[in-house]
């Protein structure tokens, strides 16, 4: 740096005397967009805590966090894709292949393989491979991610179906069984896995180029190009990272269920996108982040858990969930409505 270069900056210009000091506080709309979902989460917890004596017990906290762990891992990866302004619909397929792969690579009822935790790593790597393929197809052939990832999902389910071959491989690995039921300090082990992934996600978002560039590309892709950012490389990288998290999520579901099933990821795509958006990660890209998405994941999970605990009839639970999710989004977006944002 050359401090001398600009030693002669003009004095006082543009800083009119007596003008109000610029505040350090962001404006109200930004605060609500950032903290509104957190408020909604707290509100939901208070409400359920008031209505159900079991809600605020340690056992239930453990249960909620355990239930949220798979979706949280998915949401961390998905967030980077959403920050780019892209979308990822390959979650179900990637999880299916990862679930079957891990079930067949560790000690299982179908074959004699037993790679232990190397099998887990392999499944995560397979997920990353799917993400890499989605990313390369999207950026190389300039096909919208909507299409490529949808195709990847179909491929993933196809591969999983072949691997399934008619008999579900059940896990026979005592180490993995330990991860399914084991607890540390009162929380399930998978909860810690999710926390670790979330921390990695935050680290990547805040302290690596991937996180920074993902937001820049989602915010203004033209600028990203003009700033010399290798846009295609980082887009592909974001998809790859996301694929790896879906792979891990597939492993986690397999561990929980004790066998590898093709349906391991059914419904997770929609749930993850919903959670991310409820938490404030916008589909238009550039805004939100890992923490936003995690708050969304907790909102969705607490909602499902709480409605069961307070005894809402299963026949109306779906509708009640929908109403509360819409209400949460409305409350969050309310102060932003004046900004004439184009909503698509």
């Amino acid at each position, binding site marked *: *740096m050359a401090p001398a270069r600009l030693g002669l*900056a003009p004095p006082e210009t543009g800083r*009119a005397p007596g003008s109000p*000091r610029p*505040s350090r506080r962001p404006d109200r709309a930004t605060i609500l967009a950032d903290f509104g979902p957190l408020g909604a989460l707290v509100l939901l917890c208070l409400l359920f805590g008031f209505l159900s004596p079991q809600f605020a017990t340690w056992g239930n906290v453990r249960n909620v966090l355990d239930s949220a762990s798979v979706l949280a891992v998915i949401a961390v990866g998905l967030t980077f894709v959403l920050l780019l302004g892209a979308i990822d619909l390959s979650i179900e397929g990637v999880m299916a292949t990862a679930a079957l792969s891990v079930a067949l690579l560790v000690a299982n009822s179908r074959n004699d393989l037993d790679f232990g935790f190397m099998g887990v790593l392999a499944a995560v790597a397979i997920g990353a491979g799917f993400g890499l393929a989605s990313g390369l197809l999207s950026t190389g052939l300039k096909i919208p991610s909507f299409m490529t990832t949808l195709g990847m999902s179909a491929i993933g389910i196809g591969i999983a179906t072949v691997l399934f071959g008619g008999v579900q491989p059940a896990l026979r690995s005592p180490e993995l069984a330990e991860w399914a039921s084991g607890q540390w300090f009162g929380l399930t082990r998978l909860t810690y896995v999710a926390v670790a992934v979330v921390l990695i996600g935050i680290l990547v978002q805040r302290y690596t180029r991937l996180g920074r560039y993902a937001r820049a590309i989602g915010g203004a892709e033209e600028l990203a190009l*003009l700033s010399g950012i290798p846009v295609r490389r980082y887009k592909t990288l974001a998809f790859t990272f996301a694929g790896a998290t879906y792979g891990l999520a597939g492993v986690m579901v397999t561990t929980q269920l004790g066998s590898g099933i093709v349906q391991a990821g059914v419904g997770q795509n929609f749930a993850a996108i919903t959670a991310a958006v409820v938490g404030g990660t916008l589909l238009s890209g*550039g805004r939100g982040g890992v923490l936003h998405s995690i708050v969304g994941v907790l909102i969705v999970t607490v909602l499902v858990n709480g409605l069961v605990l307070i005894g809402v009839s299963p026949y109306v639970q779906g509708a009640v969930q929908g109403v509360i999710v819409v209400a949460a989004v409305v409350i969050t977006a309310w102060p932003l409505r004046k900004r004439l944002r184009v909503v698509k």
Partner: protein
Amino acid sequence: MNPDIETVEAEQSPGVPPVLAVRDLRKRFAETTALDGVTFEVRPHEVVGLIGENGAGKSTLLKMLVGLARPDSGTIELRGRRVKMRGIAQAGAAGIGMVFQEQSLIPNLTVAENILLGAEGPAVVGGLYRWRELRRRAQVQLDKIGSEISVDALTESLSFADRQLVEVAKVLATEERTNAEPVVLLDEPTSVLDRDETEVLFAQIERLRTRASVVFVSHRLDEVLRVSDRVYVLRNGRTVAECVPGDVDEATLRKLMIGRDLAGSHYDEERQLPAREAVRLAVRGLTVKGVCDHIDLDLHEGEVVGIAGVQGSGREELCRSLFGALASRSESVTMHGRPLNARSPRAAIASDIGYVPAERRREGMVGSMSVAENITLPHISEVCAGPLLQRRKERALAEEWIERLRIRTPSASAQLGSLSGGNQQKAVLARWLVSDSLRLLILDHPTRGLDVGAKTEVYQLIRDLTADGVSVLLMADSLEELIAMSHRVLVMKDGRVAEIIDAPAGAKPAPLRVLEGMV
């Protein structure tokens, strides 16, 4: 009338009721006071000029007049009746139309659709477009401003200037919807128009005033003085003066806007040092297919070369191709005598070239990212240790540049989009200054949309950079600015270099001299 107003020879015309009267409007956003008591009125058939620095409250005021913002207190009266505007549609129906500074046209619709968007009237029957009627009615509006733009053209295919004209035509369409005479708000309508187009617009304003009242907002004080009957000066959210053009000059207005005298010319011409001997960039036979034809150019160390040319002369394309953002062929491009590889912006940046695009919002910044993040974007490796960003270091670096360039921001982590235009532009410039090794800076209209004070700061910055040996390629909003800032002016016409005119300090060519080569 507000007693606080320092009336400079205010015209007294009692008895004529104003069409639009604004009294003591106030508005606060969080901790920032945007308007702090704005009072002004517009009488029938009058052109009222509105000037003020960026951040003085002009934009907020205009937004309130068309219902895009609500005042905390104060009143807006339209033809003697108090109104509360709720949106552009309602304002249009009441007879207030606005030409936006940020263009409000939809790029993938035709000109005709855009002009009548939301005001199709008889061009839509039973929910169906009647295309012939739509085109006819749109053509009427374009004829009013003597434009030859096709009503069937896609808006995105038009130049920036043509789009501005369409925007004006769109507002003129309001006069047919309201039986009463409309109030037309023009928010810096000339900032992207060239000279001829500006003249057409001024003629249009003259024609318009026979049937409407006009509020004209511009940074160009000469234009404001020329077209306005009266001028209001805003400063810090307050009306501080009301003047009649015949009684004041630009210097007086500038002083009123800023609240103090500017020392000498704000271009700081005396600080223009002679360029150094060494050639930094040598371009031979650069061709961009269909736009630029065999351009030769030498740029010395510490030199500013201004590129003059009308819309479509190829000057933007020349600059973009030098930055690698546009494919081009050339016999040779060398930097310090070595071949320059600038096939992509990434390669250009690696060769120590920086580029500030004209369309700041789309290409120049990420509004949703912080000031610090915007500043470090192209040179992120400077604040990285291995794969990890060092946010403390990044923040320190950003704060250093915020301090040096006097960027007015609540903090380094404030969203860039929330700052005023001038401060945004300073952050965009800081992005390139961060690198020690910057050798060539390409500036595409760096002062567009900035107020006088911010412009001066940009000029100062260019002077400082050249003193430090950086070379600058400049395209500017006005010829005056271009000539004042440049060592030499490269005049482009139809994709070729028409002429190179020397512009040393103290012997600047007249704008007319440069204009001759352009047209």
